[in-house]
């Protein structure tokens, strides 16, 4: 098989990418490893999706349905239950070996490749929880899948570690299903997810949130019998004497998401250690020409609307690449003072660009500066910035010949 643009993953990013590539005149093949498209949206039955794009609060499946209808209406081929077994480059083309139950193993050659592979959850072992390995330890996303897709209840008395968005949403979901959520424990001094989830999921349901504390040990050999929680010091290490034992049958983890790029890494593309995803330009092209990344595989977004936006950007640029209408970004974007990261990390001059960034800490009355050498290109004021809340900024086209632009955050003088 041959295609102009191959899109891996039919979640929100991949659906938008496939649609945009098709609209750009390219032949598109979209593959999805699950039996139904929609990605993680399928299990997100809560609302809040589509506020930016549709000015409406949709559920996850509703949001996915809209994109899926559009993809279907343009007869874009989706191969379901399909996995990438191998990916190589030959003569600047992407050579993939795919497998599914209907076709077996088969090769596909693509001129351009869009990786919309999403992210995975950090596990209990990756946050170094100790004890034995009993049943009853679930990542929040796995629990969400069990409850919302399969109708299974994973536990009745739960402790949640980590105040990421899925963790807070699952604390509410379990409460609604009649389980008891004893508390959400967060090692940092502030909540890790969006403020709206703190209010709507925890506060509205009287679920206690414990900041500066963590789970240090899981008890029980067969099923979880309890956990030890402890307060932590500034270096996040548990404080001696603050441990207490909480009987429970389930520990849910919401301790971070990791962009999934394992199938791309053998190609030798440059990665950004602060996002966990590939380095991209504003067309979402990686350092390998023709290879695009979008959605949570590039960096973990807060809002699906922005995931879709990145997918559409990648898809239309991938179609452009097939028509040789795509150059690689050379201008380096540096996340400077007080920034956790900024995406894209490269820019092509003469084109608009959407830049996403997160502050490194919670800051009030801040000024964002975009500088090229001595010259300040943009100034923007923010009343409050928090690391869990990503900011979106549209940059004017840059002049050619720049080497580097630096984004930095400066605390403004308070007007006393």
């Amino acid at each position, binding site marked *: 098989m041959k295609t102009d643009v191959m899109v891996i993953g039919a979640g929100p990013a991949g659906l938008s990418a496939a649609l945009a590539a098709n609209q750009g005149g390219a032949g598109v093949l979209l593959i999805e*490893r699950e039996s139904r498209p929609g990605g993680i949206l399928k299990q997100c039955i809560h609302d809040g999706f589509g506020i930016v794009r549709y000015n409406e609060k949709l559920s996850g499946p509703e949001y996915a349905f809209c994109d899926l209808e559009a993809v279907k209406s343009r007869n874009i081929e989706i191969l379901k*239950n399909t*996995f990438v*077994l191998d990916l190589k480059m030959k003569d600047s083309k992407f050579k993939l070996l795919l*497998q*599914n*139950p*209907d*076709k*077996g*193993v088969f090769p596909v050659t693509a001129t351009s490749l869009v990786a919309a592979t999403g992210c*995975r*959850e950090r*596990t*209990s*072992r*990756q946050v*170094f929880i*100790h*004890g*034995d*390995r*009993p*049943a*009853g330890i*679930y*990542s929040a*996303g*796995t629990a969400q*899948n*069990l*409850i919302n*897709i*399969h*109708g*299974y*209840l*994973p*536990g*009745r008395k739960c402790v949640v570690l980590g105040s990421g968005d899925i963790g807070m949403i699952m604390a509410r979901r379990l409460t609604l*299903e*009649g389980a008891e959520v004893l508390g959400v424990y967060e090692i940092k001094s502030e909540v890790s997810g969006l403020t709206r989830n703190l209010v709507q999921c925890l506060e509205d349901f009287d679920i206690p949130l414990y900041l500066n504390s963590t789970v*240090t*040990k899981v008890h029980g*050999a*067969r*099923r979880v019998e309890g956990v030890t929680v402890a307060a932590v010091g500034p270096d996040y290490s548990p404080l001696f004497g603050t441990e207490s034992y909480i009987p429970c*049958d389930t520990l849910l983890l919401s301790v971070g998401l990791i962009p999934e790029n*394992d199938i791309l*890494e053998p190609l030798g593309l440059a990665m950004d250690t602060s996002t966990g995803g590939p380095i991209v330009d504003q067309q979402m092209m990686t350092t390998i020409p023709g290879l695009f990344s979008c959605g949570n595989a590039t960096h973990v977004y807060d809002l699906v609307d922005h995931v879709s936006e990145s997918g559409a950007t990648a898809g239309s640029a991938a179609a452009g690449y097939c028509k040789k209408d795509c150059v690689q970004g050379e201008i380096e974007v540096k996340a400077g003072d007080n920034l956790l990261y900024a995406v894209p990390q490269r820019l092509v001059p003469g084109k608009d660009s959407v830049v996403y960034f997160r502050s490194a800490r919670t800051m009030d009355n801040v000024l964002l500066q975009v500088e090229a050498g001595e010259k300040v290109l943009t100034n923007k004021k923010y009343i409050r910035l928090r690391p869990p809340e990503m900011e979106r900024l549209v940059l004017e086209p840059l002049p050619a010949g720049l080497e580097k632009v630096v984004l930095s955050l400066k605390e403004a003088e308070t007007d006393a």
Partner: protein
Amino acid sequence: MEGGLQLVKKTLQSKGFPQVELSERRGAVVLEGEVQNWDDYLAAGYGAVGYGFRGVVNNITVSGLKNCFTESRPAVKDLSLDSSEFDVVIVGGGIIGCAIARELSRWDLKIALLEKEDDIAKHTSSRNNGMIHPAMAVKLGSKKHHYNLRGNRMYDQVAGELGFELEWPGSLALLTKSWQILLGPLAKRSARKKGLHGVKVFSRRKVKDLEPNIGDEQRGAFYMPESGIVAPYKVTVAYAENAIQNGARLFMNTMVQGFVMEGSRIAGVRTNRGIIQAGLVVNAAGIWSDRIAEMAGDRFFTIHPRKGVIAILDKKTRNSQKLILGRAQLNGRSHTKGGGLTPLIDGNILVGPTATETPDREDYSTSAKELQFLEENHLPLNKALKKDDFITYFAGTRACTFEEDFIVEASKYVENLVHAAGIQSPGLASAPAIAVDVTDIAVSILKKKADIKANPNFNPRRLEAPNPGKLGLEDRNRLIAANPSYGRIICRCEMVSEGEVVDAIHATLPAHSIDAIKRRARAGMGRCQGGFCTPAVLNIISREINSDITEVCKREPGSEMIVGRTKDKARAGYEN
């Protein structure tokens, strides 16, 4: 032996244990009394070694350390095995017991293997680094050396017959001080004496050329090509399945609680499923082998568990290292085996194990301190590795005796009991050879009573399900065309298909729990640790064994994964 006891007494007094009382029982020295802590218990036990006794029975109690130990026991209690008769009853379904069952199945015998857990290889046999050691770190003349060397040489044949993966990457025992390279000729001579082939001394630069990511502390290495890797639980499963295919019976959730003795013979084996009539009993009970010996009145040794914590790294690290790496252990008396970085047959790198003495035989919990030790001591051997690469970690215990040697012999006092006990490292490498010897001993005992014939239907080759990942493209496509479930991947990290999970569920030795499937088919063993495949595997198990989803377990009964269905309370409300 009176003189021997005096000498032991003197030694223990000089070590500060005058309160320990000594006696001799059937050639073993028995220690009794009370000490303050576990270190003292160990010091007293080791202090009694080397005075001509068969073994040390350490019955010293430690104040404050009573009955607080972890031990899993089967929940079932029935009479399903009561009055059953077997020529041989093997106690313990670790690699030793399973290998013995397979070797015994060459003979026309009724064989039963009893395992107290719900699956085989749940203790030491799945909690080690999977290395087939060269017979280098073992004392010449010891049973360890004898079995290690022979077992190592048998692995190619056994792997071919039983169909498990085996590689020989070779190992480097890294030197940390420049002068140690002067020990090279000595090491080579020792290796020759021990029967090893191809041992070489590598300079610092040669090591760096071979392993570009090697840590900077190294000052050269001893290279041992006869170092192999396997998945130890898969080897155990392979042995067990071939034993079953040749007529042996395996009984899970079956725990030995005592023996019915008739004079100096074991007549029956008391279990939670009734009394089994046994012609001969093989003690392969691993960390509990001293308890089994005690039940037969033949305890002449003591198992003191030595815990090892292990971490597994993401598969993407695998290409950063070719050989098994560890630091050379030049202090021959040290029991704290080094551990290191072992490439795994399935593509990860294993860090560890640690080695710490513990009173608790089945405490497999890990602590931050132990992980930190692995991170600080072992990880730096390969500079490409970092703590972020850890995907999981766990612990195991080694079944050590105070003599620090294997016990492979017929009981001296019970006519029909054979011990394969105290099997610690290098037990995995030694298993094939131990099984052959135990079989010879058992058969010669049985031949005294009856004529034992070879099993006419014995097939050394294990019949196994296809492994689509190992097939060529055409064969794989034929397989998927015939059965599309081999084309449906359910574990994306390890690329495991639904068909392989179904095969594991219905295998010769069926796997009915999440963890058992993980050990057979690798679903859930990857970097997401089952985050994505767990719901699918739960559903497949439930469907294939026709049991409700709330009954599917992570491991043994009591580890159910799902507690109910959503809305079940609301539904119950409507129905009322």
